[in-house]
């Protein structure tokens, strides 16, 4: 039975950064991931990572932009930490080997990004996430003797001792089907977001909300779950992401009448307003009949010099060519807002600690909350790294202070029982894929850019029905080697839990703030709603609660771009 000081679940940027930090702090570390670490969805982050590193920039400016971007729902103490520590993190990455692109003098180069008052986004062409993820994995290989990697292991359950502390997990070796108990003094969840609960989404197939649901099920509160980011530029057909870097490099948005409509909605920042603002503007244009017949808007990247596009936006040149049949250096590409990121997650403090002792969370699975109602582009990579590192350090510190816990004796047989129950399901129910599709389409219809009470009520009804149906969905594969069917059944349960939390939080917030726009409550209402909404799993259903927003320097103001 593996036992480690620090156990990390998920091996994207947050998980890998946590592993390196915990190992640096002297802890024995294991990192578990249901996919090989370089397949993690951090790989898809294209545009870059924010930091106020230039002498003429300041962390306060970065923090203010982030606070304003969050529509004042971000916790300012955590935002201050993130923005203060950002420059050193960039330098750490640079020294670790990330091939950041340079400016003309050979120093780190920057590009402009949405909602930012300075060009402070550091980048590697438009494969920044990939470059950082692969470099961190280089470091994991380098420290192979101190960090045990369990690649292609699927976590099924978090374990608790009698006092309620998290003491490890049960995971299934996907290759053999064998279950194993992992004991740990500290457990860090870093298993990403839940985009697959929406269809379409920019998120990968693996983003099924595993960590959010696992923590929720053992009593950890979730926070800001109603805040779902719709990215302004995704491909209509399949939801693939076109990086904000395109607009950062100078691309424009036009409606079907050829109007650069952002002039109306954000006269100062235009295409580089916050994502919620741009997505709403696009959706309004589309809803009011000024979009193209396929319900899209045109993104014109031909405004960017062609050579610059080929060098700095190569990936979306490929995506345009391969997945939309468009040469973006020659003609506009049609896009629309698409589900991209979940600001909410497992509630943590600025060291990644959840209210459950021994359980940490970092990255998209967590809600610190540095993004509040709306995340700025290029702040998510930063979030994963800063709070991944801080979680790793803190978890290693905790491990020095506590003894190796014992997991409950029944842990393994309980987990095996759940898997066996899935394998034993009688055929006759709906297919897992059918339920998943209905969930995704429901969420994307009723819990999207614009929401109202009726739509949310319908969404909740459907999600709750699907929760009844899911346990009867039969599977085809009854083997043990790489049984992806059984994993899909478990993931479906995770997505449904997360979706339910999202819908009830969206119903609860009867105002419009950040990514949550209620057509029945179209104004921001600081008097009644300047607080976080939490969702806890209590008994059978979700219980709503509140948590205060921390305000340090920046009092809420009207938000214009």
């Amino acid at each position: 039975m593996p036992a480690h000081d620090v156990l990390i679940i998920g091996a994207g940027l947050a998980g890998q950064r946590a592993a390196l930090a915990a190992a640096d702090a002297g802890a024995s570390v294991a990192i578990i991931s249901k996919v090989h670490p370089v397949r993690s969805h951090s790989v898809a982050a294209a545009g870059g990572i924010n930091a106020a590193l230039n002498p003429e920039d300041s962390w306060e400016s970065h923090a203010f932009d982030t606070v304003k971007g969050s529509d004042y729902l971000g916790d300012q103490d955590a935002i201050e930490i993130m923005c203060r520590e950002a420059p050193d993190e960039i330098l750490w990455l640079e020294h670790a080997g990330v091939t950041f692109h340079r400016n003309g003098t050979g120093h780190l180069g920057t590009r402009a990004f949405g909602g930012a008052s300075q060009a402070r986004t550091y980048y590697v062409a438009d494969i920044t996430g990939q470059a950082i993820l692969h470099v961190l994995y280089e470091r994991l290989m380098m420290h192979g003797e101190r960090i045990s990697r369990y690649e292609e292991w699927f976590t099924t359950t978090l374990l608790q001792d009698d006092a309620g502390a998290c003491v490890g997990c049960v995971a299934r070796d996907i290759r053999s089907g064998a279950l194993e108990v992992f004991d740990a003094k500290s457990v860090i969840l870093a298993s990403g977001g839940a985009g697959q609960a929406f269809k379409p989404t920019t998120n990968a197939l693996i983003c099924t909300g595993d960590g959010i649901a696992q923590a929720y099920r053992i009593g950890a509160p979730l926070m800001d779950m109603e805040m779902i980011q719709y990215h302004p530029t995704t491909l209509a057909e399949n939801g693939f992401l076109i990086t904000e870097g395109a607009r950062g490099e100078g691309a424009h948005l036009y409606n079907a009448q050829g109007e650069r409509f952002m002039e109306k909605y954000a006269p100062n920042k235009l295409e580089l307003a916050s994502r919620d603002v741009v997505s709403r503007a696009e959706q309004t244009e589309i809803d009011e009949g000024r979009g193209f017949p396929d319900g899209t808007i045109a993104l014109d990247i031909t405004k960017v010099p062609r050579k610059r596009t080929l060098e700095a936006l190569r990936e979306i040149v490929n995506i345009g060519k391969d997945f939309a049949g468009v040469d973006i250096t020659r003609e506009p590409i049609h896009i629309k807002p698409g589900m991209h990121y979940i600001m909410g997650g497992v509630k943590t403090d600025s060291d990644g600690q959840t209210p459950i002792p021994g359980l940490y969370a970092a990255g998209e699975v967590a809600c610190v909350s540095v993004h509040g109602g709306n995340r700025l582009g290029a702040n998510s990579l930063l979030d994963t790294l800063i709070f991944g590192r801080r979680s790793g350090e803190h978890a290693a510190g905790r491990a020095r202070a506590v003894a190796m816990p014992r997991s409950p004796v029944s842990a393994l047989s309980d987990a095996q029982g759940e898997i066996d129950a899935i394998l034993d399901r009688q055929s006759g129910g709906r297919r897992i894929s059918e339920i998943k599709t209905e969930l995704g389409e429901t969420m994307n219809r009723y819990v999207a850019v614009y929401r109202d009470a009726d739509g949310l009520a319908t969404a909740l009804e459907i999600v709750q029905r699907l929760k009844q149906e899911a346990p009867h969905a039969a599977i085809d594969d009854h083997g043990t080697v790489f049984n992806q069917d059984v994993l899909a059944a478990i993931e479906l349960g995770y997505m449904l839990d997360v979706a339910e939390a999202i819908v009830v939080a969206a119903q609860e917030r009867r105002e419009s703030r950040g990514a949550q726009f209620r057509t029945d409550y179209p104004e921001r209402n600081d008097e009644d709603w300047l607080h976080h909404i939490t969702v806890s799993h209590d008994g059978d259903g979700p219980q709503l609660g509140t948590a205060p927003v921390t305000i340090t320097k920046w009092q809420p103001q009207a938000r214009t771009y």
Partner: protein
Amino acid sequence: MAEYTLKLRRYDPQSGEAPYYEEYRVDLEPHRSVLEAILKVKAEQDGSVGIRCSCRAAICGSCGVRINGRPGLACHTHLDKAAQTGVNADGSTILVEPMGNMPVIKDLIVDMDAVHWKKIQRVTPWLINKQPVPEREYVVPHENMVDVTQSMACIQCGACVSDCLSMEVDPEFVGPAASAKAYRFVGDPRDAEQYERLKDLAEDPHGIYDCTHCFTCIDACPKGVAPMNQIMRLRRIASNDHHIVDRNNGERHERTIVGLIRDYGLLHEAEMLPRSYGGYSWFAKFHPAAGAELLDSLPSITRAIARGKVNIKQAALGHRIPKADLTAVQGIYEKVEGKARRYELNLYISGYEDEEEAPAAAEAPAAVAAGGDAMPSAPGPDPQQPTSASESESA
């Protein structure tokens, strides 16, 4: 909509049965990907089909397979194109098999750890920092970072490893993906051990000189990493910049071929071994290693003659090509060798030579100065700019 027949190679290690092929009919638009078709099969017909996949957009590198005999990403191959390419293409049947050169775990899933990742580990795949590490960033030319971006663009999908012919012959060959990974450090001016890395890979009998320039990896790569180009660049830096003459005779062999083509316009087979082992001297023929290699190669030589691939007379006396042609060949050498700096092609900076630079490009802070002319340690647009990290200091 069009109807396609997906013919999947199935293998269940628990069944005790040999791999077999199973056919599924799928209705999808022709521009949809092979992965979408497989996922549709999984969703609607048979959830037991095994394939790794995640991003669907050719970024995560999970879904490397062979499609109608060719390696690639399932998500990156359109159905219409897949049905029309490769052996036995009939416009509607698409054969999908697991990648080659790696053991199969189940269906389309291979054991990448056993081969691909082991080889990546082989090349010391992490930056060995040039000392002293600056307080702030290393100050290095933009061109160098853009240059190694081509290798960084590798998504570790294994498509190049799948069909590497050299690896088929020599499973120990470090291979295309790991070599590209090696270039990512060799081409990085912040790395302290360029020489040691190259020496290591040149001296390894399964290292960079084990590649036979078959171009398969360049065709296979869905990301334009062009692994073979990276291998050739490793060789050029090893031999031209560091003068590493390896014990496998790879460097001398390559130099011999380059020299023979310059002198004769075509390969002069009889001169190959002597020159590879003994250099340009007349006495080279008597170099003992050349004799041993000749003896060793006799079976291949005999087969080549028997099959008419080699003409004994031409092989012994050298091929003759018209004088004008030879002059033209030599003109190429003069032009290439006459360049002040080595000319390297790169995905990210080749650009389009025929196009005029748009005026805004000059204003963009990080725009590259010279279209296709950038290369490692090339001075950047600013003459004051340091050309290597050793000259840099904290800002």
